[in-house]
């Protein structure tokens, strides 16, 4: 294994739980320094278990990983010095204020006493919580809690940041604020970010590279563009001028790919041969004297990738509970 000073290398990582469930079933991955790595998967896929292992809070059953060049099992303390983490369900003390959280965190992280207050306030300012700094966290909104959680993770200038579903349960506005902050951390401050999410859009917008995990196994990896190009072929949606021509249009389209759902009055297919077939499709429709009012090409999405790799849709699928992180 090579040593990446602020990257992550994982080889054959496995974590089993009571009852023989293997939440993480042998994964390999490399996160390059300074990138945002998206770890995408449905509930229960093994995302949080992976994060707990990489942040040294859960010993792996087998396999190895190096975070910031340190072995996660043999050099836990060194790993923890280099990383910050905002774990699932921002774990905060409802009875303490935002500023008191920063005070405790800066003290425990060994920030010199004279700098604690300034460091805490600077981070509260950065995540937009300075006006709420003296309010008890019990009264914070979900978005505010996540932002405080992020600020707490940054106290000791970590070079690698783990964010476990940082926007789950947030409204769209808070979500996009979180995205901006994470992007800023990676692009401006050079922090390596390992981000788990069950939102395709989040992985698409933020991540430089993505791994898709399902049932404890990585089923696909690459840049969002590569993944889409690799499996997710574009789909074509055609709306005939006359409503009764819909079936005829659908028949023509079905020669070029597999039918997919389309809005009423239109037909759609996932193109077997990609965009190269478009001229041929147009000629065929013209040849059968079918006139068309709408002709749309939909670029493949990560959802298509997920569907192709797992046979299921990611979003809106049946949520499964992740096995509780209790050592076997």
């Amino acid at each position, binding site marked *: 294994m090579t040593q990446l000073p602020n990257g992550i290398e994982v080889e054959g990582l496995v974590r089993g739980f009571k009852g023989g469930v293997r939440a993480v079933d042998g994964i390999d991955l490399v996160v390059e320094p300074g990138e945002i790595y998206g770890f995408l998967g449905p509930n229960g896929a093994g995302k949080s278990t992976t994060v707990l292992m990489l*942040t*040294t*809070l*859960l*010993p792996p059953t087998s396999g190895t990983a190096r975070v910031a060049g340190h072995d*996660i*099992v*043999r050099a*836990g*303390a060194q*790993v*923890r*010095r280099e*990383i*910050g*983490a905002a*774990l*699932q*369900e921002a*774990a*905060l*003390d409802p*009875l*303490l204020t935002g500023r*008191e959280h920063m*005070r*405790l*965190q800066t*003290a*425990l*992280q*060994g920030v010199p*006493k004279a700098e604690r207050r300034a460091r805490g306030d600077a981070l509260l300012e950065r995540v937009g919580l300075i006006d709420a700094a003296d309010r*008890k966290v019990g009264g914070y909104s979900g978005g505010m809690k996540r932002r405080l959680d992020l600020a*707490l993770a940054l106290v000791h200038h970590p070079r690698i940041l783990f964010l476990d579903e940082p926007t789950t349960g947030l409204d769209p506005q808070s979500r996009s604020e979180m995205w901006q902050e994470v992007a800023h951390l990676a692009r401006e401050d050079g922090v390596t970010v390992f981000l788990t999410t069950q939102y395709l859009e989040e992985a698409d917008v933020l991540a430089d590279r993505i791994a898709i995990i399902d049932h404890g196994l990585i089923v696909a990896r690459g840049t969002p563009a590569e993944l889409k190009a690799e499996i997710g072929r574009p789909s074509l949606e055609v709306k005939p001028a006359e409503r009764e021509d819909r079936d005829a249009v659908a028949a023509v389209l079905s020669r070029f790919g597999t039918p997919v759902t389309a809005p009423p009055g239109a037909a759609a297919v996932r193109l077997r041969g990609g965009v190269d077939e478009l001229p041929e499709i147009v000629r065929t429709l013209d040849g059968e004297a079918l006139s068309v009012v709408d002709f749309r090409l939909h670029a493949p999405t990560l959802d298509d990738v997920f569907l192709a790799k797992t046979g299921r849709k990611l979003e809106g699928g049946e949520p499964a509970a992740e096995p509780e992180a209790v*050592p076997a």
Partner: protein
Amino acid sequence: MSGQVLELARRSLLQTLRQPALVVPSIVFPLVLVAVTSGGLESATSLPGFPSDSYLDFIIAVPFIQGPLFAMINAGSSLARDVETGFLKRLAMTPMQRAALLIGQLAGVMAVALLSSLVYLAVGFAFGMHMEAGPLGVVALLALAMLIALAFASLGALVGLRSGSGEAVQGFFPLFFVLLFLSSMYLPRPLIEQDWFRTVATYNPVSYLIEGIRSLIVTGWDGEAILLGFGVAAAMAALGVFGAAAALRTRLVRT
């Protein structure tokens, strides 16, 4: 390490003080019990062999045990909450030493217990309590009260950390309340008429905690009672602290 302990003790203190519903009963409830019994049971002092001619002097030892029962709940539910919310994981990610968490949490709870003890003493003296062991006796009493508070708080911490559930800690409380009532709380053991009650009270460690405190107020310097009081409290505290430390090692796993 000392800096970590201080910050965690501060947090524990803030947690308790910000829940007046936890602080007020722990001070007021035992005093109400003292007020009621010292009024109603005053005639017990005329029983042959009763060690004091003031029932207040006799019963005022009880709050020093009852108060720590609340400390037990506070320490236990606070740590259980840290398990439940995942706050413990946040702490585990920092270079914090495990011992600092336990010591800090217990120190915060004991600061509240010290405050309560001073209130009990002040109220006792205000209503005419006599301290047979003199001013040094007050110091010895506070020392024993603190050791008792540590014993109960650490037992609470043990349950909180092991179960990781605030409800489990709450469920533990009545058990100790029963132990308190089945002790020499209301009467000296030799004067308890029911044989079974006297036997239970004799085997009940809580009796010796009460009698240790009580001896300083009522008897003066009674070596045996003081030694038994400190001994039982120290044994309970040792059990609690080692148990809680072991439970924390299991909870706060990191490589």
